[in-house]
């Protein structure tokens, strides 16, 4: 397979017919599996500007195929609520779920002071036993909440349901109400049992609903400051959010809240006082943005702070939105200040990475966002796909009306949101909207990943282990980006593997300095000496040419 000497000629893409590659990926599958997978493996083709082929996504995983997907609990507790430091997150279930989601996602957080709450280093669980499975777990849950309150005195407690909770019929929501009244703090439950939906995506939705219904809008105090924004879908892996926060602050924005990297309960409660929602990860957080728009009249805008060009573009877009000359000038000043170092690094790294091939299979949104960074150092992303995204993340939000709602999605509650009678306040007048449209500033849109990918590239949804191995064998990429479960199968194949969920141990990669950081990370990996050591000298030259003789 892809060891060093063979890899030299890996970029010979012209010999590979994408259709043939696709056949290679599915022809070993049983017929039904092959039929299903063939709809989730698409050869990209852009027509009429932005039109891309249809891909099947957000559908059930095929049992036994070896998927990398996780569950609804992971999406809800692990991803969206996990990074919030001052909500005491209590897992209701057997010990495993809480244990595995304890500090494993590298979300960083920075409490304001030594006395501020930070529960992220703790794992709280009801450690459900067989007697609760038989007799019900509500009693134990109530007691656990009381004990947690007595020891930790949190301002809020979130309860996260694991698989057996739904099956035995524990009503976490009524327990939450009862205990909330009893203890006088905000307690809310999430019905995020692992079997719901088809992936962690359902958990994002449930988390969005819960945080919106129970926390957003509780604090109407309007903060001082100009250009009030929320940053949505940024989870502060490896410190990304810190970089973005610093940059936004320097530009003159007032950051009201982040959902949910480096976040706190109070920020969520106050988030409806912002003027604009910026969305990083569309998949995991678009629900909150839409609900905030409907209820409070806050528009949202898709941005991306991964990659220097994307960062500059996003900053300009936000500044244009506010149409404030001082802000526009400040943004330009910062871009002008940051770019020379970025360009210098790009040039340096390009000399060693130009033309190399990358594949990205993560998320969410990062399979899209990281393509920009690779392009900045001259690398080609020849295949990409999401683990748990929906069609709109691939094809753009225009396809939303045509997405069929299947039984699995129907099970996830869609909150009915109405304009808040007192607090609904559309942030833009008809005139503003006209001005924005004229400037080409699109609100509430996301064009998806595929229109940014070249013709002939392979787009693979929920890639299986088998397909991963085949893609590596056929394309011999220079770097493969995915998650921890794929990490060592890829590296054992002689291909460097970068985790783009957790960033391995790296980061931050956001905004200008982060982009430079990522360029050099890729450079280190694809040009590592280690790949030249795989064959021992005697394996390279096995012939015996001489021997010592003492006779």
């Amino acid at each position: 397979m892809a060891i060093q000497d063979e890899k030299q000629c890996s970029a010979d893409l012209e010999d590979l017919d994408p259709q043939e590659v696709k056949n290679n990926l599915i022809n070993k599958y049983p017929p039904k599996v092959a039929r299903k997978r063939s709809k989730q493996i698409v050869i990209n083709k852009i027509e009429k500007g932005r039109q891309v082929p249809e891909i099947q996504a957000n559908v059930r995983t095929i049992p036994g195929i070896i998927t990398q997907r996780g569950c609804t609990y992971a999406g809800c507790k692990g991803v969206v609520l996990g990074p919030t430091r001052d909500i005491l997150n209590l897992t209701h279930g057997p010990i495993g779920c809480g244990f595995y989601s304890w500090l494993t996602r590298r979300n960083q957080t920075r409490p304001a002071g030594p006395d501020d709450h930070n529960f992220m280093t703790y794992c709280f669980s009801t450690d459900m036993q067989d007697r609760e499975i038989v007799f019900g777990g509500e009693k134990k849950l109530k007691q656990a909440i009381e004990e947690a309150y007595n020891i930790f005195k949190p301002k809020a407690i979130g309860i996260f349901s694991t698989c057996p909770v739904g099956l035995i019929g524990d009503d976490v929501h009524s327990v939450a109400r009862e205990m909330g009244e009893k203890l006088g703090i905000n307690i809310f439950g999430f019905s995020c049992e692992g079997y719901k939906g088809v992936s962690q995506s359902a958990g994002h939705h449930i988390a969005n609903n819960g945080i919106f219904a129970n926390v957003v809008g509780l604090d109407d105090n309007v903060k001082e400051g100009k250009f009030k924004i929320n940053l949505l879908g940024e989870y502060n892996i490896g410190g990304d959010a810190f970089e973005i926060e610093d940059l936004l602050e320097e530009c003159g924005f007032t950051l009201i809240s982040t959902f949910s990297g480096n976040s706190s309960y109070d920020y969520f409660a106050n988030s409806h006082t912002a003027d604009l929602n910026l969305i990083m990860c569309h998949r995991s957080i678009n629900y909150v943005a839409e609900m905030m728009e409907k209820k409070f009249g806050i528009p949202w805008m898709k941005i991306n702070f991964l990659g220097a060009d994307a960062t500059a573009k996003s900053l300009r877009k936000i500044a244009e939105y506010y149409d404030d000359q001082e802000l526009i000038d400040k943004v330009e000043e910062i871009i002008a200040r940051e770019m020379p170092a970025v360009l210098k690094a790009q040039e340096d790294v390009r000399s060693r990475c130009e033309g190399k091939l990358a594949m990205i299979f993560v998320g969410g949104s990062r399979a899209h966002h990281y393509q920009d960074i690779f392009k900045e150092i001259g690398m080609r992303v020849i295949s990409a796909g999401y683990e748990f995204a929906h069609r709109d993340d691939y094809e753009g939000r225009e396809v939303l009306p045509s997405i069929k709602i299947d039984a699995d999605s129907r099970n996830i509650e869609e909150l009915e949101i109405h304009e808040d009678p007192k607090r609904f306040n559309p942030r833009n007048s008809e005139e503003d909207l006209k001005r924005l449209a004229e400037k080409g500033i699109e609100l509430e849109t996301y064009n998806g990943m595929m229109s940014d990918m070249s013709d002939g590239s392979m787009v693979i949804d929920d890639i299986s282990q088998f397909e991963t191995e085949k893609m590596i064998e056929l394309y011999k990429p220079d770097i493969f980006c995915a998650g921890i479960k794929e990490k060592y199968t890829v590296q054992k194949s002689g291909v460097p593997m970068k985790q783009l969920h957790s960033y391995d141990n790296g980061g931050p990669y956001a905004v200008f300095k982060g982009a430079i950081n990522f360029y050099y990370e890729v450079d280190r990996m694809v040009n590592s000496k280690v790949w030249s050591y795989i064959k021992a000298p005697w394996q390279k030259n096995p012939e015996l040419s001489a021997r010592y003789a003492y006779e």
Partner: protein
Amino acid sequence: MLLRHTPLKIQDRKALSVNPAKTCQPIGAMYAALGIHGCLPHSHGSQGCCAYHRSTLTRHYKEPIMSGTSSFTEGASVFGGQANLLQAINNIFTIYEPDLIAVHTTCLSETIGDDVQQIARKARDDGKIPDGKHVIHASTPSYVGSHVTGFANMTKAMANYFAESTGKKKNQINLIPGYVEPSDMEEIRRLAELMNLSTVMFPDTSGVLNGPQTGRYKMFPPGGVTIPELISAGDSMATIALGEYASGDAARTLDTKCKVPCKILDLPIGLQATDRYIDALRKQAGTDVPTQINFERGQLLDIITDMQAWFYGKKVALAGDPDQMIALSEFLVAIDMWPVYVVTGTPGKIFEKRIKEVTRNSPYPVKVKAGGDLFLLHQWIKNESVDLLIANTYGKYMARDSDIPFIRYGFPILDRIGHSYFPTVGYRGGMRLLEKILDAILDRKDRDSPEESFELVM
């Protein structure tokens, strides 16, 4: 402070677990199953379980961890997971071609009451299991026991499904190494082989989870106990099982099912437990202990002799799995260290009794808890500190906050390497443990010594 909310005052908790010292059964079953050659573990439940177990094992071993999942949806949770498992079996044998699939259950499939054995029979009847291939299973509800229980259950399933007694004994012994690292399994077998014993060791993750970088990925690496070996386990002369919690059930199963007599020992961690292991091997082999083993024992003893000043009287807090904690505590006592707090998350009565036994001569009151958690351990430490903390990676948060020398030991270790390559069992493993203890204690002394008493020679 990272654990800023941990108070000195210890309040009784009956329902709330904080910072667990255990995880759930299925991950142990998955780990055990990887110790069979050509085996693909399979998680019968929601796909999140499988994702979490694979992720945690991957982080601990820095090796590929493969497993299938039945990917339950809401429908499967209501109507049962039979259709999902049948489809999974068919897909796995078609696509990945393992020799066997080792299915473990989850809290989900256990709560709804799926009968995996019946589903596997149906798969066989439907022709979904190719000839000569196998599907085995262990029942591993997450709401009972811990990851150690899951390991024990899958290990027992290996004996149950495969071991056969032909009536003709083979000149070999069974070794059940317990829930230890691949490196430990390798060492346990090496010692037996030095005693001239032929062995069947199961599970055996050596060569599977500490494999080489070759530039070629193999889903089923050369390591692992083979199915013919497992079948022959029923004809072995005897079974030596290490660790009651992880290996006891499998050993007794072989005894009941195939009349293979068993001896259940502590894990051979440290001097005396290794002595007992070697002595058991010696009696089984009917030979003298070879020079090599006596030499290694002497080396271990030599370190203890030379460095006892640094060990003497030091107080240690430990958290980990019960078999390890029992043997390790005994070793610490043997080198004049005092385990003062010992916690395992795994429930079970004999643990507290055994720890009290090995620490009976302690000058300090010993706090011990089975089914405890790291939060409680930290509270004990905050009330009266120790000289050394031994725990898995989660211990580093306590060690940093309370400024205690710290040794990573147990499962999981997510931030260091070494455990999969270098054993802590046997005399050589004991030497490694002593090196780790000395490094931790002496690095601390170097850090804290005033300049005038900063020493070159220690």
